[in-house]
């Protein structure tokens, strides 16, 4: 199982009449990887996830989980999945324990109750909470319950749709730690999210959908590297800006003693220029994932 991709999406399209929800999507998630699946509302993230779970049938293309076709070999494909939907559609008259027991019973492998207990402890959902009916649960408690049901069977693949929606900052930290542990034990996490800081922290790679199309697939580190940085140079005496800047560098503000530049790619050539000047300090402001992704969201990058 280690040799095949945890998730392999090959040319998936999903059309609803004239609406093209997903267009010719090609994507793979390797075993042990945490892949962030980003996009605005309606970008096609949930549609793609539902195709992986065989809840939706693609118009064309195929999807595989650990080499099993999600549509033709759905049972094998889903036997290793833990899934957290964006909204937990559960009956409000059930208790938390009823929900966990029912969903655990539908899995093929038994749930280790000590693991469930550990998850409860990490996410702050006590036994007394599990005895309460869901109608008494807050949004955050429902989310915690959703996370426990997804993680409780120690699946090899976790498909999480907006996992931290409704969680407080402390619980978001607990979730990040849980994902890190999951990756350490070799499982794959395929998570859609709106929270870019969370993706930045926990994901190895990012796939970004816009209007059903994959517009970015890269490691978080590469995105940061490729993104333009802001560089500020401080001078001991007036330094007139040069007539020609190195490739990739653009002057934003060329004040007499402070220059502000935008630099794409390597910083070396700019440093060569600065070396000849009376520099007192250089400040490099790294681009965040958010800066890059926002450009894609706005449609500024093709």
């Amino acid at each position, binding site marked *: 199982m280690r040799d095949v991709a945890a998730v392999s999406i090959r040319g998936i399209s999903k059309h609803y009449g004239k609406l093209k929800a997903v267009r010719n999507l090609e994507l793979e998630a390797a075993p042990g990887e945490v892949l962030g699946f980003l996009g605005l509302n309606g970008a096609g993230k949930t549609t793609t996830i*539902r195709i992986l*779970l*065989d*809840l*939706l*049938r693609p118009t064309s293309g195929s999807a595989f989980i650990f080499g099993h076709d999600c549509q033709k070999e*759905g*049972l*094998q494909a*889903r*036997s290793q*999945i833990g*899934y957290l*939907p964006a*909204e*937990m*559609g*559960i*009956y409000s008259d059930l208790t938390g324990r009823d929900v966990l027991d*029912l*969903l655990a*019973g*539908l*899995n*093929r492998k038994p749930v280790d109750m000590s693991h469930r207990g550990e998850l409860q402890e990490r996410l702050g959902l006590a036994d007394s909470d599990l005895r309460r009916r869901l109608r008494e649960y807050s949004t955050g408690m429902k989310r915690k319950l959703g996370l426990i*049901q997804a993680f409780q069977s120690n699946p090899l693949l976790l*498909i999480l749709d907006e996992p931290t929606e409704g969680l407080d900052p402390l619980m978001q930290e607990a979730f990040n730690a849980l994902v890190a542990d999951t990756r350490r034990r070799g499982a794959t996490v395929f998570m859609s999210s709106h929270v870019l800081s969370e993706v930045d922290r926990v994901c190895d790679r990012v796939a970004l959908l816009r209007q059903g199309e994959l517009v970015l697939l890269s490691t978080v580190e590469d995105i940061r590297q490729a993104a333009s940085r802001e560089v500020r140079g401080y001078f001991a005496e007036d330094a007139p800006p040069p007539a020609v800047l190195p490739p990739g560098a653009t002057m934003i503000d060329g004040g007499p003693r402070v220059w502000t530049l935008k630099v794409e790619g390597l910083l070396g050539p700019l440093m060569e220029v600065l070396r000849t000047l009376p520099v007192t300090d250089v400040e490099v402001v790294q681009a965040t994932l958010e800066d890059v992704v926002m450009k894609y969201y706005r449609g500024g990058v093709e």
Partner: protein
Amino acid sequence: MSGPVLLLAHSLKRMRTLVLSMGALLGAFQVVLVLVAGSIQRSGGFEQLSALLPPFAREMMGPSMTSFMSFGGIVCLGYFHLVVIAALVGLSIAVATVPASEVETGFIDLVLSRPLARHWIITRSMAAVILSIATVIGLMMLGTWVGLSMLAPPGAEWPSAKLVGSLALNLGLLMLCWGGMALAIGSAARRRSVAGGCTAVLALAGFLLDYVGRLWNPAARVAWLSPFRYYSSFDMIVGGSLPAKNVEVLCGVALAGFIAAHWLFARRDLAR
């Protein structure tokens, strides 16, 4: 417990209050009917009623009125009373449209993200329909037996076990038929209210068609389309046996509904 059995147990647990309370109510209604029939019997009312109604009036008023003419007829009234039939059709629809409800609420996402084949959702509902109908009608029969054993006046002619059994079987199959249709409609619907509403309208249309078909010849030509045509309560009360055609048609429609439900549910997108 395997996944499908667990799912069935979960569904039965959820509907047990509805099924058991309806069964208890209809069972109690049977007990009350024995009391009513006993009271009329003691006052000699059956002879008086029979003498009052001319034959054409009996036909016009339908089987539920003409069957008042005997102790056994009154006792069996619960098996073909309009309100009882409406309640049972409602129960069949409620149980059979659970898949539509599960799609609507998103519960299906959690269930089918597990290694569970889609057809189990329909098979589970089919089993739930059969078990809930059997439970309610079983409790009605229990109420009939308890009422007759404890409250029937001496000398009253009890309806035969065969008659009660035939009525119960025919009624159960009629409900199974509506359950099959509701399941087929519910398997293609996104909203339970739409599936339930469509089936309820069909049931009403079927009932009216059967009723008009009994009174008016032109309508009689198409009345065979109504499942209610295959519930011969009056014929059985006046001494006939359960026609094999009734069993065949109602089972056939129910089976067609279940097959259609499997086919539709297997092919559809499960989206809210």
